[in-house]
């Protein structure tokens, strides 16, 4: 069964994604990392769907893709606004939200 390989790939992608989200300063890269995470999840879902032989996982994956598309749209819009206002998209310079 190829399940292990899929899961392994997914785990690697997930870790890269997490690393990207935590360590990168560039907002666009962070967004891309989030995409990686989401897609790693998708691979997981598909893998299990194949194994279980039903369509639940596929449906869910499709749903995740749709949400991810929306999320990227909003995220990029925010980055764009950020750039317009600050001439920079470095995330560590953004700390207005500090409580």
């Amino acid at each position, binding site marked *: 069964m190829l399940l292990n390989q899929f899961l392994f790939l997914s785990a690697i992608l997930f870790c890269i994604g*997490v690393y990207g*989200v*935590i*360590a*990168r*300063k560039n*907002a666009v890269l*962070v967004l891309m990392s989030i995409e990686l995470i989401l897609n790693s999840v998708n691979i997981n879902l598909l893998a299990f769907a194949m194994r279980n032989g039903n369509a639940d996982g596929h449906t869910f994956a499709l749903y995740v893709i749709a949400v991810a598309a929306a999320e990227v749209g909003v995220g990029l819009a925010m980055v764009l606004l950020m750039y317009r206002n600050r001439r920079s998209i470095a*995330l*560590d310079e*953004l*700390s*207005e*939200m*500090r*409580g």
Partner: protein
Amino acid sequence: MVVAASETTEVVLESGWFLENAWLIPVVPAVAFVLIIFFGKRMPRKGAEFGIASMVGALVLSAMAGMQWIGRVNAVSEYTHVPPVVRTWTWWQNGGVHFGIGQHVDGLSVVVLLVVAFISTLVQIYSVEYLHGDRRYTHFFGALTLFSAGMLNMVVAENMIQLILGWEIMGLCSFLLIGHWWEDSANSRAALKAFFTTRTGDVGLLAGTSLLFFAANDWTQKTLGVSGFSIRGLSAWALSGEGSTTAITVGAIALFIACIGKSGQFPLHTWLPDAMAGPTPVSSLLHSSTMVVAGVFLVARLYPVFFEGMDIYGSGLNLIVLIGGVTIIIAAALAFVQDDIKKVLAYSTVSQLGYMMMGLGAGAWLPAVFHIFTHAFFKACLFLGAGSISHSASHHSFDMKKDMGGLRKHMPVTFATWVVSTLALMGVFPFSGFFSKDEIIDNVGHAGYTAFMWVGLTGAFMTAAYMTRATYLTFFGEPRGAAAGVHHGDHHGDHHGDAGHGPRESGPLITIPLVILATLAIGSGLLNAVPFGHSWENFKKWVEPRAEVVSATGIASVVGGPGESRLAAGGEEGKEGKHSSPCGSEKPEGGVCPAPYVKHAEFKWSKAAVSLVLVFAGMIASWFLCVQLYGRRAGPLVGLTSRNGAARAGHRFLVNKYYLDHVYENVIVRTLAGPVARAAYWFNQRVIDAAVNGVGTTAKRIAGWVYKNIDQRLVDGAVNASGAGAQGAGRALQPVQSGKVSQYGALLFGAAAVGGLVLVIINT
């Protein structure tokens, strides 16, 4: 127009277009009011033409209705009940019951309609000249016309709600007109006082109407098929002997409180003299001849309720007689110390209204209503005369001592009309006041209220005395101040352009109304000249409702369309000879009573002579006093008040109006508007509000109040405690919220990893 008989008709009554459409009478001025407000300023005469035209229209309609009413009454025998012409339309509904608006026209309505329309017409004509050039000329006519609409509506009202509508519109117009020159804060304060005082009395009107409605509604719906607001329903119910005595009594007292306020009876009379701040035509129309009789009218209109509720004839004393009697004396005494001619007249009005009330309270229904009728003419004439003096002779001053005196030579017409009206007011034979006032006094005595007959006679003496004083000060003696041509600060100069003349007669628009009114002050008494025999008692025949048992359907079916005035036979047998009726004294059998049976005193010259002698005594005594006090420089009576302590105290007591105003304004109003309102607000801000705002500060501030506010504090404490808890937790976690997205991410994944671990551990 004679209407075809229907199956229950036993007596066919005449009716007519004007009677059936009497509801149009208030509608005409109401429409005129709208026209004045929207188009008045663009008209050549600034809206006055609408007002006068509408009043003439209302007068014509009233007169025609009056003629048809007389025809209706004359068509039947003297003791047959003449049903009112009633029409209703649905006005509102509630709880499935429909309440109407419409008309209830009978002798009383017709008389008052005529008086109001007539006086209003004359006053509006007079105002054209009197207020010429005033900066709010159009508004003035608007308010005056709306007032007439309100009063006429009250007079034709079919039910209590409609009556209240008219009643309150009058109050509003009174407010607007008294405060007409509102730039001066004294005027606007007087307006406020008038509205506020009558409004205080209106609590009684609202409460009394509610009470009577619920007490009577079941009976009236069942027996007559009309609501417990309707005037004929309430009347029949009160006389049916089936209503609760307590309800009738309390209802009558509550309504009477409203009448006290509106008709300036003691102890709520204080607003009326202050209301003289308004322009003189307003004083003449509203505060002497029409609006202030609204209270008297209400008592006369719902007479069965008051008759039963106050137990008239039942004892030697009741609330109405008492208030009326006290008012006569109290107000007449005050009239002696006034320097302002309008205030003399105002107190005189209060006193005369006391006569009417006393008459009604003693069962002298007809003389009291007749007094409304005659009083309207001579009092309006006196006021307009005072206005004429101030307009043309005294530079808008009303101060008799400073600015008048000796005016009879300059103003012959004003003087002549004034004297005629004064004699009528005093009740000198054969002027109109004699026929009404003397009848009141006579009938009060006849009904067993002997003490109040003497009150009435004393009042007649005092009336003669203070009117002589006013006449002397105004028209006799040496001219003083403005009357002598002296100019002084003229604070109303902005609305007149004729300062600088000496005293002279006023123009025809002023004198013609005066002459007409004076003529009526002589002649109107002859309508019910009791001394000349039974055939002269026309007013009684036309106006007094006949106390007769009629079938319930007879009253109820009157509601129908035009001309369906039907009557069922009930007490036909008592037609001839000495008439007697069970109405008012016992439970009517086989039907209902529309009105109580009232007694009439037989006229005797010997009794009239007593009052005439007293009147002449008052005139003569007062004349000599005046000559002593004001005519000569040094007499034994001059300066009496400064030499004699008792006289001084009495004088000061009167000048201060028995300190009633002091009590009302400084004690009651100031307490409510000042400390009490502030205390309530303080309570609001410091207790309720603070309790919400912060539990910490509140705890300190209202520590002493805790037990009273446990509820507040429990609820609020919980709210604030949860708030505080959340705040504390938030502060503890604050450093975590660095604002750095990557840190958040790390936290998120860390937490997720921990969560994942936990899951793994649990599941293995």
